[in-house]
């Protein structure tokens, strides 16, 4: 649990991450994801409850936990006074890694993250995607047993995001444990073995992406323009539906039947589309459509 004055940012959540899996925290802005990450990293003391990382208490064994963690923060905090390569060396020194070993790992990590050519370039001269990749390389410099990524692809173009996903998947394939937060639902669906959706400091649901979609959205979504005819037909059939702006959404395991009914009811005046349900549908159903600031 985490309290800031009267605000309860993280409200008695319970979760357990298994070794070797990718575990995701999803939620709108202000849901408590980043605060949770900071408590795991031992940089924000919890206000109550118990939290253990590697079986160690976060309040008493911070240094041991931190020496085995890799952290990719939401905000870029690479050191602008140094080149890409020196950033890794300086960071390795904080972990007490000997110089020669640090140099070996820095070379290896720059190659892994495809940053060889940018080795001697100052941070300001790197693109957003390169900075993000360098931060991931930096987080790996102590060969962590658990990698924490807070919004790993925030603000990147599709090419840069795909490259980072590829790298994260190969880290997973090597048996690394990853915990990440994101509000890109496609990212969560691609990467996470299991995830939780948080809102207002609480965990709403937990499970694999596929299970969550099946449980909370059904297999498919039928969408139709919001017309009186369509609404009354659905009421007649006794089918549950959601209103999303000027679109009606029906979450169902029998998409063809519903679509046929709706087409008949609207006498083909309105477009009806059928698509597979996604994590985004689950997310929006659970956290609502109102804007969060």
């Amino acid at each position, binding site marked *: 649990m985490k309290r800031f004055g009267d605000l309860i940012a993280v409200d008695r959540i319970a979760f357990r991450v298994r070794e070797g899996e990718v575990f995701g925290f999803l939620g709108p802005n202000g849901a408590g994801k980043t605060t949770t990450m900071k408590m795991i990293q031992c940089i924000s003391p919890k206000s109550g409850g118990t939290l253990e990382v590697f079986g160690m208490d976060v309040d008493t064994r911070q240094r041991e936990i931190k020496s085995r963690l890799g952290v990719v923060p939401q905000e870029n905090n690479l050191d602008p006074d*140094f080149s890409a390569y020196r950033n890794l060396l300086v960071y390795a020194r904080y972990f007490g890694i000997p110089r020669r070993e640090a140099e070996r790992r820095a070379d290896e990590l720059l190659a892994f993250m495809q940053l060889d050519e940018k080795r001697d370039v100052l941070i300001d001269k790197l693109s957003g995607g390169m900075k993000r990749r360098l931060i991931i390389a930096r987080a790996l410099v102590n060969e962590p047993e658990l990698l924490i990524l807070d919004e790993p692809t925030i603000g990147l173009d599709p090419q840069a995001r795909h490259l980072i996903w590829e790298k994260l998947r190969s880290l997973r394939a090597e048996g690394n444990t990853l915990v990440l937060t994101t509000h890109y639902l496609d990212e969560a669906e691609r990467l996470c073995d299991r995830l939780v959706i948080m809102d207002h400091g609480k965990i709403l649901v937990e499970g694999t992406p596929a299970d969550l979609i099946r449980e909370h959205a059904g297999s498919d979504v039928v969408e139709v323009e919001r017309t009186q005819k369509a609404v009354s037909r659905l009421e007649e059939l006794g089918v549950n539906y959601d209103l999303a702006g000027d679109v009606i959404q029906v979450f169902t395991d029998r998409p063809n039947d519903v679509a046929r009914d709706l087409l008949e009811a609207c006498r083909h005046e309105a477009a009806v589309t059928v698509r597979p349900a996604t994590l985004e549908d689950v997310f929006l159903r659970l956290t609502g459509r109102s804007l969060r600031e």
Partner: protein
Amino acid sequence: MIDITARVQSVWRRNWDAFLRTYRVNFIPPFIEPVLYLLALGFGLGTYIEAVDGIPYPVFIAPALVSISVMYSAFFECTYSSFVRMYYQKTFDAIIATPVGIDEVIAGEMLWGATRGMIYAALMLPVLLLFNVVAMPSSLLLIPFAFLAGLLFAGIAMCFTAITPSIDALNYPSFLFITPMFLFSGTFFPLDLLPEPIQYFALAALPLTHVVGFNRAITLATFSPVNLLNLAWIAAATVIFFVLAIRLMRRRLVV
């Protein structure tokens, strides 16, 4: 309690590496400053001043120039530069995600501020020797003492950095505290020319007074019991501000 291990050196080393990367600019002020001051004040204005308490004017101000340079370099390092690293570059956030703790980050910054003061004193010394305004070998003590004095000003600076709402607000201690000290700490004229209450105020509340007093004893090679008082005042204040800075920074950064 305060939790500092040998890891503090990794924070110090980070700043040392960054300093070396831009060494050309960093090494210019300690050479230029004493030359300018000695020429303008010591030998320019000084020709109208025969002697202060029997000491030639350039010799009188030489230890003050070192003291001021140590004060400025340590104070500005741990105000503006530390604030930039903390607030804009998020360097502190990056470091505390490693086994290095917040106490070590702040201590490392202050030790670095002190080091910078010491580097400046060491670079000024040959210039002062060239002008023949400091006694040898006692003046070699300027260098280690600059570390202690630097640590004092770094601690005071870090306290302001911990409570400042913005980088602009750091101008207040610079103008209201550092600038008066530059003028009224027995730097360019003896303290006893001032009204008595102000003398006492300077001794009680202006750290530079004690630093100049001690440095003057070093460069003139004339030590007296008063200098022990200077040293005790500086040592006590250094410990207090060092600890206070860490506590205030914890309050700011650990949330």
